[in-house]
């Protein structure tokens, strides 16, 4: 089922007894959950898992005749409980009730997806044209600024709502237009920018063998409260790629020798020959030791691990 089909069935008030919602656009997903709830005449109950409501669904009690809509989030056991899928599909499990399963993500190659593809509604990021209409509902911005806002928020409606709220509050407190409030947010870097780019700044500093820059980036890394595990994982992938590219020098096809993609090779080539092969091997092994310290042995505190790593590397 796609979003349009869901929209049509909701406007004609013909509800199914099983829905599976998934996707990264959680704000839109929430809107449709509320719409379903409003159209449905019975009560809405949030449940942890299907197993926790199995008795209620099976109950024949006269006291429990009210139909309910159960919203169940991330019930992982259902994804593998193939024995009950048929009962769910033909509705014998839910009887007069409606079951709505909400998943953060569903593997499109899995058996569950294949079995329930007719019931699954994907909530993916909306196009700029559609989002412009949603933005217009919240703030009065010029088309250019609205488009810029959508790009800044990476088409994520949830983030758009947070940023438009920022614009509304700034505009109300300073008695300025929404356009002016938007410009002020841009000038003062007030819009949220995901931290991924900054993690790569630290990574690039290490790979460039730039001690000063590494320690400068480390300060902001600590201030942001980012996880050292992420940097250890990225560092391993990149050190390995650089080592492979360095070792494959002289070969006509580096991709064939290393199994790396063109993008990985170009990225690794930016940092090649800044460390020797022996140094790269040693760094990979220290990185591994740090990972084990955090996840297995507990030898070094997680808050000290990057200091330890850099002292050992440089």
């Amino acid at each position, binding site marked *: 089922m796609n979003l349009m089909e869901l929209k049509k069935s909701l406007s004609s008030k013909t509800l199914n007894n099983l829905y599976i919602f998934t996707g990264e656009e959680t704000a839109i997903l929430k809107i449709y959950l509320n719409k379903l709830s409003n159209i449905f005449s019975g009560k809405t109950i949030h*449940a*942890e*898992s299907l*197993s*926790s409501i*199995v*008795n*209620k669904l*099976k109950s024949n009690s006269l006291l429990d005749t009210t139909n309910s809509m159960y919203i169940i989030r991330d*019930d*992982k*056991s259902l994804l*593998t*409980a193939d*024995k009950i899928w048929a009962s769910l599909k033909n509705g014998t499990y839910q009887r007069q009730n409606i079951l709505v399963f909400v998943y953060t993500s569903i*593997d499109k*190659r899995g058996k569950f997806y294949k079995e329930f593809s007719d019931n699954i509604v994907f909530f993916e990021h909306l196009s700029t044209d559609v989002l412009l209409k949603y933005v217009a509902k919240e703030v009065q911005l010029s088309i250019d600024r609205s488009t810029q806002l959508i790009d800044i928020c990476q088409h994520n409606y949830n983030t758009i709502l947070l940023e438009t709220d920022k614009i509304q509050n700034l505009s109300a407190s300073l008695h300025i237009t929404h356009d002016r409030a938007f410009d002020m947010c841009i000038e003062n870097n007030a819009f949220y920018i995901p931290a991924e780019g900054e993690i790569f700044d630290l990574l690039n500093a290490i790979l460039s063998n730039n001690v000063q820059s590494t320690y400068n980036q480390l300060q902001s890394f600590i201030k942001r409260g980012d996880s050292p595990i992420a940097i250890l*994982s990225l560092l*391993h*992938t990149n050190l*390995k790629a650089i*080592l*492979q*590219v*360095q*070792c*494959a020098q002289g*070969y006509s096809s*580096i991709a064939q*020798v*290393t*199994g790396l993609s063109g993008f990985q090779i170009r990225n690794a080539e930016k940092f090649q020959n800044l460390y020797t*092969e022996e140094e790269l*091997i040693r760094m*990979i*092994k220290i*990185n*591994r030791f740090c*990972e*084990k310290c955090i*996840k*297995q042995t507990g030898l070094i505190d997680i808050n000290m691990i990057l200091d330890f790593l850099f002292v050992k590397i440089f």
Partner: protein
Amino acid sequence: MKIIGQKKLLAEIDHLLQDNNFPRYIIIQGPVGSGKKLIASYVAQQLGATFVPCELAVDSVRDVIELSYTQMDPTVYMWADANKMSMAAKNAVLKITEEPPQNSYFIMTTDNVKGLLSTLLSRGTLFNINPYTVSELKDFAKNKIPDSTDSSINTIINISTTPLDVLMLAEIDVDKMNKVVSVLCDNIGSANLANSLKVSTFLRYKEEDKDKYDPILFLRACMFRYSALLKETRDPVYAKLVSLTSTYLSDLSSKSLSKVATVDNWILDTHVTMVSRG
């Protein structure tokens, strides 16, 4: 429901069932893929009970416990990998194991009982999955892959310890994997390191990479290759590599460590060992 082997365990379960004395709370311990959930569903079937696999989250555990008191029909609740439960969830289960409600049975499965509370362990009846014999695994492999050659079957039983291992190997070309293993193990000291590290691209780190090789089974095949080389040449370097590979295999079994980094580090260590030997 076809259960391979486990005759002793099934006899023990059947005996308790026949005596109408089946414990209300049991723990099944065995390695990953050894058939713990299958045994749990067998118990439910024999009891004529509804089989309910449950979530490990504390709220879900509390809901299940609350509902079990209102349950009229026989029901078997199973918490798979119960060692992964939070302390709060384990404590929530603890209460119900003292006096389980009528018609309710609780099963916890785990690959290591050390991950459970000692109090949870002492209140339950522990059933251990017995190691599978070579002939059990061989019969299972022949049944699952009827067209396979004798050499494939031999490789499969040499590196499998559980039926899940056999099933995973049934999905891939075992002879092809064996060739990759031989080429890597025999040449790692002289081959270009860039090329040796490429081996990672053949391994399955994501569930969807069905045609790739499971890292644990791949390393077991490498260990088997080095054992064979040790027998053949009596060169102590192979004894060192068997021991090294065994250490990395234990790291691969750890769910927290990165599998890619583990295999890459194994390749680097093996390469360095072979290069230093000359």
